[in-house]
C-alpha cells in the first residue's frame, strides 16, 4: 500500500497565489500516518485532493494497493431523524454489528448512542462520526481533525484501538497536536507554507502501539524534528 504525489501544484479558482508548488511526497504501508502543519497551510486541501474531491491540479497523485479512499472531517453531522445507534445500524453492514458495539464501547459513547446526534457534546459527536466511517469499506481513511474536542486519554485509547483493529488499513491523521502525531504515527508529512522549499518534509514518528515499549527521549526527539521542520 503506497500513496505518492509527484510535482503537484494547485491554485484555487480565481486566487492569485498557489497553495502548492511542485509538491512531492510518498507514504507507504498500512497504519497511522500524519499530515501536520500550521493552520491555513493547505492540509485540508491536500486531503481533499488525495480523496479525489478536488481535481484540476497539475502533477500526479498515484496510489498502489489503495482502491477506496474516504475523507472525514470534524464538522460532519448525522441526520437528526433517528438516534445515533439507529443511524449506525442503517449504515453498517450486518456482519459488522459486533465491531460496531466494540467501537461504541472503546469510543466511550455507549450511554449516548440512544440519543439524537444534536444532543451529544462536540467530542461525542466527533467520535460518533468517526465510528460510522470505520464501519465502511476503505483502504485509506483521511481523518481531518476527527478527534477534535476529545480529551487526551480517550483520544489515545481510540487511536491505539483503531491501530489494533485495522492493522491492514491506512490512516492519514490530520492534527495540530505535535505530541500525538509524533507518538502514534509512522510517517509524518510536515506541510509548510508555499514560500518554503521543499513544501513538504517527511519524518518518522514513533508509531506507538498497544503493548509496545515506549521511549520518552525518542519521542521528544521526534517532536523536536517535527516542530523544527514546520
Amino acid at each position, binding site marked *: 500500500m503506497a500513496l505518492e504525489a509527484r510535482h503537484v501544484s494547485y491554485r484555487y479558482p480565481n486566487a492569485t497565489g498557489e497553495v502548492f508548488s511542485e509538491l512531492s511526497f510518498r507514504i507507504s504501508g498500512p497504519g497511522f500516518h500524519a499530515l501536520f502543519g500550521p493552520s491555513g497551510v493547505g492540509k485540508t486541501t491536500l486531503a481533499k485532493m488525495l*480523496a479525489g474531491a478536488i481535481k484540476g491540479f497539475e502533477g500526479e497523485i498515484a496510489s498502489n494497493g489503495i482502491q477506496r479512499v*474516504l*475523507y*472525514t*472531517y470534524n*464538522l*460532519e*453531522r*448525522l*441526520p*437528526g*431523524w433517528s*438516534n445515533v445507534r439507529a443511524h449506525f445500524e442503517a*449504515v453498517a453492514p450486518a456482519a459488522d454489528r459486533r465491531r460496531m458495539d466494540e467501537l461504541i464501547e472503546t469510543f466511550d459513547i455507549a450511554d449516548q448512542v440512544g*440519543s*439524537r446526534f444534536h*444532543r451529544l457534546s462536540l467530542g461525542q459527536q466527533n467520535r460518533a*462520526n468517526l465510528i*460510522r*466511517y470505520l464501519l*465502511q469499506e476503505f483502504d485509506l481513511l483521511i481523518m481531518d481533525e476527527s478527534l477534535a474536542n476529545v480529551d487526551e486519554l480517550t483520544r489515545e485509547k481510540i487511536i491505539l484501538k483503531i491501530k489494533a483493529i485495522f492493522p491492514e488499513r491506512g490512516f492519514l491523521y490530520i492534527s495540530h497536536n505535535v505530541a500525538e502525531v509524533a507518538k502514534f504515527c509512522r510517517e509524518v508529512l510536515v506541510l509548510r507554507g508555499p514560500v518554503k522549499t521543499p513544501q513538504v518534509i517527511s519524518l518518522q514518528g514513533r508509531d506507538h502501539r498497544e503493548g509496545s515499549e515506549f521511549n520518552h527521549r525518542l519521542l521528544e526527539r521526534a517532536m523536536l524534528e517535527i516542530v523544527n521542520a514546520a
Partner: protein
Amino acid sequence: MLHRRIYQFLIIYGLGLGLLLVLKYSLNLSDYVIPGPDEIGRTGRTYAGPYFLAVLNTLGVAILGHILSICLATIVAVIGRLTAWIGSFIRTAAFNIQAYPIVAVAPIIFILLGDGLPSRLLIAAMICYFPLLLSFIGVFSEPVREIEHFYESTGRLTWRLQIKIRAFENIQKLTTVIVGSATMAMVGTIVAEFIAATAGIGYSIRIALYQSDLAKILVALFLIGVGTSLYLVSLEWIGNALQSRLKRA
C-alpha cells in the same frame, strides 16, 4: 383560550370597526354610508349563517388550491435541483412570472374556464405557487454538506435521501413558507370569486358592494378573518407537531 392569531385578528377587526364608527359619528355620516352598531348587529344575525357557509366554500377551495400548489412546487423544485442550469432557469422563470400580477390574468382564466370551481381553484393555486416554488427550490438546491458528505463519499446518496436531508434540515423554513402562503391562497380565492365567480364569500362581497351594503361587507370580513385564522392555526399546529415528532429524542 383563544389562539394568538385569532386574538390578534379580533383586536385588528375591533380597531378597524371602531375607526369606522368614530368617522361616522365625528363626520355625522348617514347609516347609508357607514351603518351603525345596531344595523351591523342585525345584519350579522341575519347573514352569519349563509356567509359562514360561503366562507367554508371559499376556505375549501383555498385549501385545495394550496395543497395543489405545494405538491406542484415540490415536484418542480425536486426536478429543478437536479442540475445547476435547470434550477437556475426555473428560479429565474419563477421570479419573472411572480412579478406579473396573477389577478390581472384572472379574467382570461374565467373566459377560458368559465366561472365555476376550476377557475377559482387555478387562481388560488397560482397566487401561492410561485412564492412556494422559490422557497422550495432554495431549500432543495442548497446542499447540507456536513450531512451529505458521508453518504456521498460512501455512495449512498440517493435523490430521495438528499431531499429528506434538505427538507429535514429546513423544516422550520418550509413550515413558515407554507403557513405564509396559506393567506395568499385565501386572498387569491376571494379575489377570484370577487372578479367573476358565482359562489364563495368573494361573490357575496361583490353582491354586497353592488347593494352598497357596508354592514354585509363587515360581517363577511369578520367571518373571513376568523376562517383564515383558524386555517393558519391548524397549519401551525400541524407544522409544530411534525417538527417536535421529528426532533424528539
